[in-house]
């Protein structure tokens, strides 16, 4: 495999969009073991633990058995698959993107929705608040010019229409944050012409002094990740997800920061993934790269990091051509090297620059955050932010923008 095994690189190797809920479940467990009394040393003693009741604890609720597992490739069915899959425990809708104002000011944004179920089947209850689903969302905006980053989160139960998701017509929301397919003009024929059933959609989120409102206009066709939509995370049975991506979504809209409103346009990226399994104990986190290159190609690659410093062999990615054609990338296809670190205010060291190469294609890319501090210090802290890509394929320069997610550091 094309990984350099020097200590830093090995330690900094991370992998993949085994994201959010899973990642959170994993992180929370780690967190709890850091904070609590020494647990492992006293296997039989009953311990008194005190915690503050928080959404995080709800997330940690033991899963009731009976959830479906991702074990076989999946033929995606749109628009139904844009909606929730309640028979799976965990699911997310991951919107990230790079925007630019009319005046050339650069921004990055992230709006992510997560669903996590406690039970695979609903129990009849005498209250409309009763819910098996917990939804949460993260919203972050990076202002490259001002070197400013802001992140917010929301938690809600999937009840009473406080939060929820549906495939047709597509609608996804937590309170006042939402992504929703626009109602077709009354004269137009109902039904999506592209078979996707998503566009045009409106994305909106606001908190603090920031308000983002985007129209998502059109995209490349969806790409099934892994083995025809089955993205394997380790050799364990069921340690996999169903995964598809919309790697380039033409977007335009407005971004308000304080009193200033910017008309913005750019490309967004949507990752859709659902599953029931969690990371295995020896998997400690991941790095995920989504890069949109100037030449119209998009590259996704992730690596799952393991405790012993090695990388999960099942880590993989995809290269999407301008026309939507996709090429699967296995770990052996890619060389990834960390070339710089950054320390967060909380003392967590994250990798902060990479060299990524696909030797077969003679593609060499340098990846660098456009803003060092893009750590979301929310209920769980992780780094996710806009990056700049510079490199070459053969002699041809290849540049671009992208988003990187770094999870599992500092625990």
């Amino acid at each position: 495999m094309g990984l350099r095994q020097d200590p830093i690189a090995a330690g900094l190797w991370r992998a993949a969009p085994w994201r959010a809920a899973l990642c959170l479940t994993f992180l929370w467990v780690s967190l709890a073991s850091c904070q609590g009394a020494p647990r492992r040393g006293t296997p039989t003693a009953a311990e008194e633990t005190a915690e503050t009741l928080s959404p995080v604890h709800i997330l940690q609720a033991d899963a009731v058995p009976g959830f479906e597992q991702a074990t076989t490739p999946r033929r995606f069915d749109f628009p139904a698959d844009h909606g929730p899959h309640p028979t799976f425990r965990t699911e997310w809708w991951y919107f990230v993107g790079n925007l630019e104002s009319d005046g050339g000011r650069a921004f990055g944004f992230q709006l992510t929705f997560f669903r996590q179920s406690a039970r695979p089947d609903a129990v009849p209850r005498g209250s409309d608040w009763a819910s098996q689903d917990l939804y949460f969302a993260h919203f972050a905006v990076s202002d490259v010019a001002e070197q400013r980053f802001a992140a917010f989160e929301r938690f809600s139960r999937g009840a009473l229409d406080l939060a929820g998701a549906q495939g047709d017509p597509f609608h996804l929301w937590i309170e006042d944050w939402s992504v929703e397919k626009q109602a077709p003009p009354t004269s137009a024929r109902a039904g999506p012409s592209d078979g996707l059933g998503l566009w045009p959609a409106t994305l909106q989120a606001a908190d603090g002094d920031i308000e983002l409102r985007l129209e998502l206009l059109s995209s490349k066709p969806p790409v099934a990740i892994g083995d025809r939509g089955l993205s394997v995370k380790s050799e364990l049975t069921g340690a996999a997800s169903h995964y598809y991506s919309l790697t380039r979504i033409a977007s335009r809209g407005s971004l308000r920061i304080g009193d200033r409103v910017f008309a913005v346009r750019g490309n967004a990226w949507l990752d859709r993934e659902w599953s029931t399994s969690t990371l295995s104990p020896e998997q400690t986190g991941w790095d995920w790269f989504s890069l949109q290159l100037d030449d119209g190609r998009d590259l996704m690659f992730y690596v799952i990091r393991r405790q012993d410093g090695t990388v999960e062999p099942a880590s993989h990615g995809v290269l999407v051509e301008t026309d939507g054609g996709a090429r699967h990338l296995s770990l052996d296809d890619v060389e990834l090297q960390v070339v710089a670190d950054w320390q967060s205010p909380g003392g967590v060291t994250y990798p902060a620059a990479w060299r990524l190469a696909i030797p077969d294609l003679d593609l060499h890319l340098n990846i660098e955050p456009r803003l060092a501090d893009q750590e979301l210090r929310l209920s769980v802290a992780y780094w996710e932010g806009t990056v700049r890509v510079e490199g070459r394929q053969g002699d041809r320069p290849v540049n671009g923008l992208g988003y990187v997610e770094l999870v599992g550091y500092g625990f």
Partner: protein
Amino acid sequence: MSLLLRSSWRWLRHHPWQSASTLLGIALAVAVVTGVDLANESARRAFSASIDGVAGKATHEIVGGPQGVDETLYRDLRRQGFRASAPVVEGWVQAKDRPLLLIGIDPLAEGELRSFSASWRQEGSDIQSTGVPFGDFMYQPGAVVMGAELAAELGLEVGQTMAVEVAGKSHSLTLLALLRASQDLDRQSAKDLLLCDISTAQEVLDQRGWLSRIDLRLDADSHLGEAAWRQALPAGVVLQSKSSRRGVLDQMTSAFRLNLQALSLLALLVGMFLIYNTMTFAVVERRPLLGNLRLLGVTRRQIFWLILGEALTLGLLASGLGLALGYVIAQGLLTLVTQTINDLYFVLSVGQVQLLPTALLKGLLLGSLGSVVASLVPASEAMATPPGQVMQRSSLERSVQTTLPRRALLGLVGLLGCTLLLQIPSTSLALGFGILLLFVLSCAVLVPPSMWWVMNLLQRLGGGLGLLARLAIRGVNASLSRTGVATAALVVAVAMTLGVALMVGSFRSTLEIWLETTLEADVYVAPVDFASRGGRQDLDAALVDRLLQTPGVAAVTTTRRVEVVSRQGPLQLMALGMERPAFDRFTFVDGTAAKIWPAFVDGGALISEPLAHHRQLAVGDRLELLGADGWRPLTVAGIYYDYGSDRGVVSLYRDTYDRWWRDPGIHTLAFYAQQTVDSRTLIDALRQRAEGEPLLITANGDLRRYSLDVFDRTFAITQVLRLLAMGVAFLGILSALMALQLERRRELAVLRALGLTPRQLAWQVVTQTSLMGAVAGLLSIPLGIALSVLLIEVINRRAFGWSLDLELAPSAMLASFVLALVAALLAGLYPAWRLGRSTTANALREE
């Protein structure tokens, strides 16, 4: 100075009985004041904790109509971006025999408002496979968390289930984890709190679709300020600050608490009389000694401070004892206070008496400073003692007698002052108590002149009495400096207890008559939780239909009792579905049922007398209530007598209520039987129709009895305070009269030397004290009646706004007289017994 202190000490030691009873009297008075204070304040804190305990950082709340706030409003607000809000569903559940407050929250919405901590035992260590038990809080139906104290009390361990009852239905709750007291949840509130997910709360409390309220945190700097929130709210709900809610509820019980406090202060007043009496006596007794001290070069100032110092020491000692005793009393009082608050105002569970430094300090200050103030007069008297030449007792008594007219005048001026103050058109309760105090003091000042006059009269009339009796009578007047004060204390104490007794009796008889006229339907039907705390269960609609079809029914009145929001805070509202004949049960302050009926049917509101009083409303005035579609102005059509609620009630015709509240439930039904049907038969018929549904079906007699029981419970605390004040009075009389007789030892020894037998002397002593007791008892009757009139017409009216008919119960008056007499008699017994045993020579030896 050590000489002076030693002389003080010796004097006190040689009068152990007097010192002890004074000490005990003051201690009891301080105990009553402190006890009431502690109980009051503990109850207030328990209540405030029940609001604040779970309010966390919430500054405001959104409240709605009788059913609460529609839950979709919360969702709509959140989806419009109005955050920093949290839904709350709360209500009382019955666990075994204690009520617990079940609070349903959304743990996902709480972040900005408050945090709850819980702990749990975790078995084993494999963290990877062990979930967090808190996680099930939201998902597991019936999952609750509670404080460790409560769990221990209920004998519950984490993971075990308990049964609670709501409206006759049983629910099973599982203890998920133990709550910890924290910044947002103090121990006091955690004591009877069950915290659960909002879904569980809605299920258990049967409140699907409704929230009790929405808690908010409004920051001044947020762009979504109060104005934005208000604008976003639909009609039918209001935004109010937490402090205003607390204020309103605090105000609700303030009159009640002030009354208790005033009663306790009366006990202190009696205690002060006691000190005054003791110190006066101590000064009079020691005149020769003080005169000698002056001769030895002790200055007037030193003498003055000596007496004050003695009083202060006594006061401090007694207060210390009183505080301890007060804490004990407070335990009992708190139960009574809580009971009353529960019966009259809102659900409050008995908390623990808290040792509040301020209340303790207050008791200590009142006891010690009261003692000092009460001995200012005797101390200045002592200061006036001329050196060397011992002033004759006779000359002192003469000077007292010459000042009698002046004292009488002072008392009369005081009474005139009361009369003038009563003319002030004020509703101030504090002023009312001020008048009461002035009245009592004036009367106290008038007691010695009155007694002097009575004794003179007795002497003149009693020519035929034996020598001993005349001697006893003359003895009273001869030592008026002491008998006067002792009798005054006795009169005040007895009159006060009589006044309170007459007031309570009048209240009870008024209530009885009112119940008689009000509860004239034959059978009342209510849901089973009607009588329990916080019970607000509706009767099932189908069941109501069935019951209405019962044969033998002539007429039915339906009632829905709810709490609605008015501009001045929450208000009790009764929606009455009734016909014209039933309407006649109302007795109006002015106007007749016949005249008011049309206005009532036409949408007018009837308000109870206390409500008219509190809100200063008259017929024709407007009252604004929050209806389903916003504020509704109502015109007051009539003011009726009502003794059911001291806060007041507004009654609406059912159609009026339905039009504006769209809240169709019925709480109670009152059935009038046909002429030929007796109520037993009707009850049986209704039972049959109920088909086994749990219902309270009550004949009117039982309901009347129940109401009177509640009344008696409510006034239990008043009775207890009255008894305590009587205890103080009793001790006062005992100490004063006993001291008096002991002081007469020499005089009696002379009589003995002249040939009287010990038996005759004892008889003489007992006659004298009984005589004083009898006079005090007699004088206290008019004073007691006057006090009860003041309590009924001034205090009660200002505090609650009720009209009560004065009822002079002979038994109460007789009891007061007997109390005075018995206390005086007992006070004579010990000196008489000692006289019988002492030898003449010993008693005369001092000569």
